[in-house]
């Protein structure tokens, strides 16, 4: 290809045909929902309900915590059984706090404000507050609170609202189906984001392998001259913010910077859809469309499911599995994470649940690096993965940073093409964790040192003040020569 949208990248097999030709299925309401308090980047949400309490669909269950956080709402009506740790969507099978909701099956909603006819008549601040209150987070995977992103971006001059319909991960078709079935609401959401962030135009970027989605979106936005559908080549990691911005605008986001540094605010199509639902129908983020696929699933398809539904039940509503899956994943195969059990609940940022057969997953045996440089060619960030891995393995994290570790987006393109099957991303993840551990323990040490230092200063000051007071009193005593009324402290 002569025109290169970005450097490097890979072309993994799509497997999208498994699910792309079936309409979105409404998943039934499960008996129990496990709603994690942290489904977003940042701190746990703080529960405001207690065990035994009856809740209605859409009712606030936990408000956003301090710092970066997002509230969570009841996906259906029922009562709270308890709030306790459940298995989190994490490869180690570690636990996270979750609200366990027993559904009553009525699905009766909390009273909502009437349909908002003209959200464009509201001040942008009000809209971004509503988006924050609805618990909307980035639904492409990063799970960054959407309102925070919009508010931060609107401090810059935003030229383009970039709506990400890339969906470059193999197997996943949730965004594809959403664009085909609900194009108009995505466009409405995009327009609302544009209004809230005071941006100029909207670009909806879609990979060229989604022909139907492209025409549906073109149809939906043809009456708005400031919206354009940009067809981008299908190449992983097109859906990554940095690469997509480069493909669409030709600009690179400065290292360590944000998309808004180049005048772009990017949101996933599913996020735009959730924002439209929130700002017109006052619906908080309580469900999402998720691709249930993989060779072990009997009838792979996209389902619209309530947040908190155990993924095992989602697989059940796609006919269950035809064989014991070798690997269960949340997300796509390139960046998704392995889960140890199907009790893990669906959370806001998960676009896919994959149950893969053994022949769908790569062999785990690694051999020595032959320095072939395929990882260097594949890296969309221009890094040197083989050296980063070498240095990480030797615990030389500064060396790894020197070869680009801090710019790594963990997309896995390098490991995908490595003929030696070296788990490069594993090394990078490890090194990044270690570095942040070192940094936080450094911060902790600095803090403790600061405390003890200020204590020492305080004590010294007190001691010197005491001594000074004593001296002053002694001299007074000598002057007056009256030993009466002397109070020693």
């Amino acid at each position, binding site marked *: 290809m002569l025109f290169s949208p*970005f450097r490097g990248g890979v072309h*993994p097999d799509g497997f999208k045909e498994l699910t792309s030709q079936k309409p979105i299925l409404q998943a039934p309401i499960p008996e129990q929902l496990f709603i994690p308090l942290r489904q977003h980047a940042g701190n746990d949400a703080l529960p405001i309900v207690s065990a035994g309490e009856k809740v209605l669909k859409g009712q606030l269950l936990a408000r956003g915590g301090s710092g970066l956080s997002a509230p969570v709402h009841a996906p259906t009506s029922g009562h709270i059984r308890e709030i306790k740790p459940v298995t989190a969507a994490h*490869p*180690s099978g570690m636990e996270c706090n979750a609200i366990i909701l027993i559904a009553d099956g009525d699905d009766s909603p909390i009273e909502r404000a009437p349909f908002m006819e003209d959200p464009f008549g509201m001040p942008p601040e009000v809209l971004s507050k509503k988006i924050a209150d609805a618990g909307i987070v980035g639904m492409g995977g990063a799970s960054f609170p959407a309102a925070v992103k919009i508010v931060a971006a609107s*401090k*810059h*001059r*935003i*030229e383009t609202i970039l709506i990400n319909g890339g969906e470059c991960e193999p197997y996943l078709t949730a965004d594809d189906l959403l664009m085909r079935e609900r194009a108009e609401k995505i466009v409405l959401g995009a327009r609302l984001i*544009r209004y809230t962030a*005071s*941006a100029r135009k909207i670009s909806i970027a879609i990979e060229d392998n989604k022909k139907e989605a492209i025409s549906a979106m073109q149809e939906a936005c043809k009456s708005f001259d400031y919206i354009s559908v940009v067809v981008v080549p299908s190449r992983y990691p097109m859906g990554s913010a*940095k690469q997509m911005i*480069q493909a669409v605008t030709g600009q*690179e986001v*400065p*290292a*360590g*910077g944000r998309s808004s*540094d180049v*005048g772009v605010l990017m949101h996933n199509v599913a996020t735009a859809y959730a924002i439209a639902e929130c700002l017109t129908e006052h619906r908080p983020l309580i469900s999402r469309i998720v691709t249930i696929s993989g060779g072990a699933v009997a009838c792979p398809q996209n389902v619209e499911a309530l947040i908190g539904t155990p993924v095992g039940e989602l697989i059940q509503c796609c006919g269950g599995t035809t064989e014991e899956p070798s*690997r*269960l*994943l949340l997300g796509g*195969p390139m*960046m998704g994470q*392995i889960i*140890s*059990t199907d009790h893990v609940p669906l959370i806001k940022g998960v676009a896919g649940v*994959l149950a*893969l057969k053994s022949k769908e*997953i*790569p062999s*785990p045996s690694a*051999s*020595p*690096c*032959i*320095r*072939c*440089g*395929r990882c*260097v060619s594949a890296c*969309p960030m*221009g*890094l*040197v993965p*083989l050296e980063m891995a070498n240095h990480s393995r030797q615990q030389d994290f500064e060396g790894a940073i020197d070869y680009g570790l801090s*710019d790594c987006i*963990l997309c*896995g393109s390098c*490991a*995908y*093409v*490595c*003929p*030696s*099957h070296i*788990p490069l*991303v594993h090394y990078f993840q490890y090194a990044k964790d270690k570095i942040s551990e070192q940094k936080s323990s450094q911060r902790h040490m600095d803090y403790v040192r600061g405390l003890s230092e200020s204590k020492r200063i305080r004590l010294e000051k007190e001691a010197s003040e005491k001594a000074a007071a004593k001296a002053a009193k002694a001299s007074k005593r000598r002057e007056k020569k009256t030993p009466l009324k002397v109070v020693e402290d």
Partner: protein
Amino acid sequence: MMPVIISSPHAHDNSSVNRVMLHVCFALTPCTVYGIYLFGFPALNLFLVTCISAILWESICLKLLGTPQSRLRDNSALLTGWLLALTLPPWAPWWIGVGGSFIAIVIGKQLYGGLGQNVFNPAMLARVALLISFPVQMTTWPGSGSGFSSIDFAQGLSITLGQEAIPDGLTGATSLGMLKTELIAGTSAEQIIENNFSLKDAFFGNTSGSLGETSSLLILAGGLWLLLMRIISWHIPIALLGLTALLSTFFHWLDPARYADTGFHLVSGGMMLGAFFIATDIVTSPSSKRGQLLFGAGCGAVDFSIRTWGGFPEGMGFAVLFMNALTPLIDTYLRPRVYGRNFRGQSLKATSSKNAERGKP
């Protein structure tokens, strides 16, 4: 299901070291088959001896290191032996092949830490060591008309075993060797080439030379296959051939009596094999594209200098080893530009002003 921690990605392009090596072997097949056809039984013997002994040396090293023998299945030793065989005089005795593969595998590769750890191209290290140690055996060339028809199996065997010297009528000279000796004797380069060299023969391979380097056409075909399969990229071969063409054109224009022309340089000796199969060795060449361009150009310049002004008629082996030594340096300084940073690694400037006047919705 067992809880296991396996990092993403959970997909792979199904490439493997074994497959990379086999692709290279496959690409070498045409010129190898042609070389054996051209030089007969002794060439076949030498090829087999070199490849098999390379695998045996590798196996012995793996055993001594306590590494499982299954590592042999990556076929890297086979490829090293194969490449070495192609750069040897086709009628060299068996011990050249066995000794050469010892130098390549044991000294050139395993002593450095095994696959991927060696600084120098093992095959070239072996070839150069042999050339310096055994100049007679390494510069005795059979003529191009010495195939299966002129030597039978028994004769071929005794040549391989070193019991029989090459019959006088069957020896030849490489065009590069001819050029060097005749230039010293005072003949002009133009004349030497006109009397002793045919561009067509050299291109198709009907000439004296190492086992696998005679046919530029077949090597080119293999090289294109590697490019097509993305085993190698174009940067090293193009830089190498490009700079050689540039230098030879310039000097030939300067003084045609002293300097051979471009076509002669491009199809003679180890030029094509070096450009597509030796300099592109993935372990010992730089990993960035900019580095590869510099590396290729460096190989071309050093080779041209040795051919033109040095004591040896051909310098590809030396050139590759010289640039191999520079590879770590090149890899340190010529890295790809990182996204969002300039070439010096500094962050790019933001283009959107902060707190600017808000645009109208």
